[in-house]
C-alpha cells in the first residue's frame, strides 16, 4: 500500500507570493507543490503526496479558528495517513500555523503529524507536545536537511516503529521520558559525569535543569508608614489541622487565610506541615517562620501602614517550578486587586 501524504504549506512556498499574499485563503491543490516534491521522492514509492493544502500565514494568524476549520476540512477530504506541515524554520506565523494545523489534524483525524522548525520558533513552545517537530536551522538554507529529517520521523510513525529519544531522532523533545534499565548504576554514571566535568570534558546531563527567568526589580515602596504589606510563606505554615490539606511536599495548591484578628502565631492556631525541614521550632512558635508577632508590633508603632488581612501559604519542598510560578501569578493577581503595596515572603 502507498501511504496517502498530505502536505501543508504557506503562500510563499506555494509560489503564490510573499508578504503581500499572506492573506491567501485556504486552498487545495492536487499532488505535491514546492518542497512537497522532495517529501514524495524520499518515500521511494511507499508514499504519495495526494494533496497540498496552502494557507496564507496572515490569514491563519488573524482568523485562526476559521482557518483551522477550513484547512481541516480540506485535509480530511483527502483521507490522509499522515500530515507534514512546513518546514517553517524560524518564521513565526508559519510555525504557529504549522503547529496548530498539525496538532488539530493529529487530534481530529488520529493520524501522525510532523512539522519542522527552528527551536526558537514560537510554534515550538505552543505545539511541541502535540505533534512531532523536526529540528531545523533558522532559515530555508536548511531545507536540504529539514525535509529528510521530517520524512524519517514520519516514516517511523507510519510504520509504528519505536521512536527513540528526541536528540537521536532529530525532533524537539516533547517532555516525555521513557524509563529503561541501564547497564551502569546511577552511582557509576554520576561519578563518571562528575569526573568528566572536573576534567573539562563534555558531558550530558540526564535531566535538564529548569531555566529560571529573571525580572527587573519592582520600584520600592515610597511611604512605608502608609503601606499595606502582605505576608506570604513557603514554609508550610497553615492553620492548625491543615483544613485545606496542603501537601507536605510537592504542593499542588496554596492556602489563603484571614489573619486580621491574629496578633501572633501560636501552636494553638497554626502549625507547620512542611516535609522538608525539622519542624520542631516552627511548632513551638510559628513566628520563627512567619513573623506575625513582631509585624503586629511594627504595625502598632506605625512603622508600616498595615498588614494585609489575608496571609498566603504553601509548602516549598519538592514543589514543581510550574506550580510555584502558578501560585505566584495567582497570589500576585489577588494582591494587585487588593491594592497591596509590598510583600514579605519567608522560606525554609
Amino acid at each position: 500500500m502507498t501511504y496517502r501524504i498530505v502536505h501543508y504549506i504557506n503562500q510563499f512556498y506555494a509560489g503564490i507570493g510573499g508578504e503581500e499574499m499572506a492573506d491567501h485563503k485556504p486552498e487545495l491543490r492536487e499532488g505535491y507543490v514546492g518542497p512537497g516534491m522532495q517529501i514524495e521522492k524520499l518515500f521511494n514509492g511507499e508514499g504519495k503526496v495526494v494533496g497540498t493544502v496552502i494557507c496564507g500565514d496572515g490569514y491563519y494568524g488573524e482568523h485562526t479558528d476559521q482557518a483551522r476549520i477550513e484547512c481541516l476540512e480540506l485535509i480530511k477530504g483527502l483521507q490522509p495517513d499522515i500530515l507534514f506541515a512546513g518546514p517553517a524554520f524560524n518564521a513565526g506565523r508559519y510555525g504557529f500555523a504549522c503547529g496548530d494545523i498539525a496538532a488539530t489534524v493529529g487530534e481530529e483525524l488520529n493520524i501522525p503529524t510532523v512539522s519542522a522548525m527552528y527551536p526558537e520558533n514560537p510554534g515550538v513552545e505552543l505545539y511541541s507536545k502535540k505533534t512531532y517537530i523536526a529540528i531545523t536551522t533558522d532559515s530555508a538554507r536548511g531545507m536540504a536537511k529539514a525535509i529528510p529529517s521530517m520524512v524519517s520521523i514520519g516514516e517511523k510513525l507510519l510504520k509504528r516503529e519505536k521512536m527513540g529519544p528526541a536528540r537521536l531522532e532529530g525532533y524537539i523533545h516533547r517532555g516525555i521520558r521513557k524509563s529503561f534499565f541501564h547497564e551502569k548504576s546511577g552511582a557509576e554514571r554520576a561519578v563518571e559525569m562528575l569526573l568528566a566535568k572536573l576534567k573539562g570534558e563534555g558531558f550530558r546531563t540526564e535531566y535538564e535543569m529548569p531555566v529560571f527567568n529573571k525580572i527587573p526589580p519592582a520600584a520600592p515602596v515610597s511611604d512605608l508608614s502608609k503601606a499595606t504589606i502582605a505576608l506570604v510563606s513557603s514554609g508550610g505554615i497553615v492553620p492548625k489541622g491543615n483544613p485545606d490539606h496542603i501537601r507536605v511536599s510537592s504542593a499542588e495548591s496554596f492556602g489563603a487565610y484571614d489573619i486580621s484578628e491574629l496578633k501572633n502565631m501560636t501552636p494553638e492556631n497554626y502549625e507547620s506541615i512542611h516535609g522538608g525541614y525539622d519542624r520542631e521550632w516552627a511548632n513551638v512558635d510559628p513566628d520563627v517562620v512567619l513573623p506575625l508577632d513582631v509585624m503586629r508590633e511594627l504595625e502598632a508603632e506605625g512603622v508600616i501602614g498595615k498588614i494585609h488581612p489575608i496571609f498566603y501559604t504553601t509548602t516549598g519542598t519538592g514543589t514543581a517550578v510550574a506550580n510555584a510560578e502558578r501560585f505566584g501569578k495567582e497570589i500576585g493577581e489577588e494582591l494587585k486587586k487588593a491594592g497591596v503595596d509590598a510583600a514579605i515572603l519567608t522560606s525554609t
Partner: protein
Amino acid sequence: MTREIERVAGIPVVQIATIVPIMLTVGTNRIVPGVAIPHPTGNPALGPEGDKAVRRELLLRSFKALTTPVTEQTIFEK
C-alpha cells in the same frame, strides 16, 4: 513564586530565607538572609527576648529592602 508575585502585582517582594544561592537562582530581587532553615525569622536559642530582637532586626532590614530602589538582585545583609 516570589518573582511571579512581583512580576504580576508590580510590587516589591522581599524574601527572607537561608540559602541565598537558591534565591539568586530562582530570580528573587530583594533578598534578606534568614537565620536558619527551620527558623528563618527567629533564633529560639537566644531565648524569647533574643529571638524577638532578631525577628525585629530582620523585619526592619526587610523594610529597608522594600524601600530601597535596586536595579538587580540585591542581598541585604545589614
